[in-house]
């Protein structure tokens, strides 16, 4: 801008200035002076003023939204604790179940061994080929088998009840996870509000943004297989893909 332009007052502007002063419109008079002194800057200042006001309002709104503060400082740490609880409970349940199952394996194997042991003599008996001595041994073996089976099936039954009870985690973890889902939904709403306050429309960006994957490719279990075409559906798909690669 050339210096010569600064300070050129038109007759019209002078008249308006007097008029503003006469009717006591000091603000408008000042604005007119500013415009006369530097027409470009006054527009710029007005624009900056507008933006400053918007920013101020936005910040005030955020401060008013104390819920956002609670979410960040209380609810989210609480949710982390809840999710850790889910990990702990599911791990406990898995271990409790496996403890019981592993203790049942040898018991069942023992019964199977005893059945296998009496089988040849039993077949002879059924075919009327058994002699007295073998018959006496068979009776003793079957007696042992009956005692063992009777005792161990009662034992297994109570162990199975333990397996059943170990599944009670599902109710508890289900409730906890549902709470965390509610929280995620609330955080989502708050974030959308924030975007709106900054004039970014959520819909506008929705199409563009795909989930970002970690640098090392890993994604964990795919929870939306039906909507994806870059993942395999099941083991058959894996086998087909591998065999198409000449595997």
């Amino acid at each position, binding site marked *: 801008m050339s210096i010569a332009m600064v300070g050129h007052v038109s007759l019209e502007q002078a008249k308006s200035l007097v008029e503003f002063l006469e009717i006591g419109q000091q603000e408008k008079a000042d604005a007119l002076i500013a415009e006369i002194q530097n027409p470009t800057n006054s527009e710029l200042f007005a624009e900056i003023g507008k933006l400053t006001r918007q920013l101020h309002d936005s910040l005030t709104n955020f401060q008013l939204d104390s819920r956002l503060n609670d979410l960040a400082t209380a609810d989210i740490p609480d949710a982390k604790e809840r999710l850790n609880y889910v990990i702990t409970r599911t*791990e406990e349940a898995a271990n409790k179940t*496996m403890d019981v199952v592993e203790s049942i394996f040898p018991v069942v194997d023992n019964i199977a061994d005893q059945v296998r042991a009496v089988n040849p003599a039993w077949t002879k008996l059924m075919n009327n080929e058994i002699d007295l001595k073998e018959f006496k041994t068979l009776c003793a073996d079957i007696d042992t088998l009956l005692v063992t089976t009777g005792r161990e099936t009662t034992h297994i039954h109570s162990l199975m009840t333990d397996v059943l009870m170990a599944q009670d985690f599902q109710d508890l973890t289900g409730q906890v996870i549902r709470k965390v889902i509610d929280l995620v939904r609330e955080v989502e709403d708050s974030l959308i509000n924030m975007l709106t306050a900054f004039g970014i429309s959520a819909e506008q960006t929705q199409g563009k943004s795909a989930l970002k994957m970690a640098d090392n*490719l*890993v994604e964990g279990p795919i929870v939306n297989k039906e909507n994806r075409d*870059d*993942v395999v559906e*099941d083991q058959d798909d894996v086998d087909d893909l*591998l065999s198409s690669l000449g595997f």
Partner: protein
Amino acid sequence: MKVLVVDDFSTMRRIVKNLLRDLGFTNIQEADDGSTALPMLQGGDFDFVVTDWNMPGMQGIDLLKAIRADASLSHIPVLLITAEAKKEQIVMAAQAGVNGYIVKPFTAATLKTKLDKIFERLA
């Protein structure tokens, strides 16, 4: 036959161990990620590795690559049992020289089939 089971979750290691024991593998050791597994492999005469993909520290795919890159280990068959199900990853594992790929959740029958296939090929 000496087997190394690598998974960061102890429950999954336990499941795999139980299934392998049922299939007649009794000499089984465990590691919780690739960086623990690799020195064990280098120090011991393992015949077979079953590994997860997604683990903190060294990932299963990197363990596989490290095994294939080490002349003293490169012959060891590696079976991936993983929740990773992207086609891109399966192709990557195949290119890195994996011997079998099982997606979680899986069944005892699937494990048996894959093991039979792996050892049939090596025989």
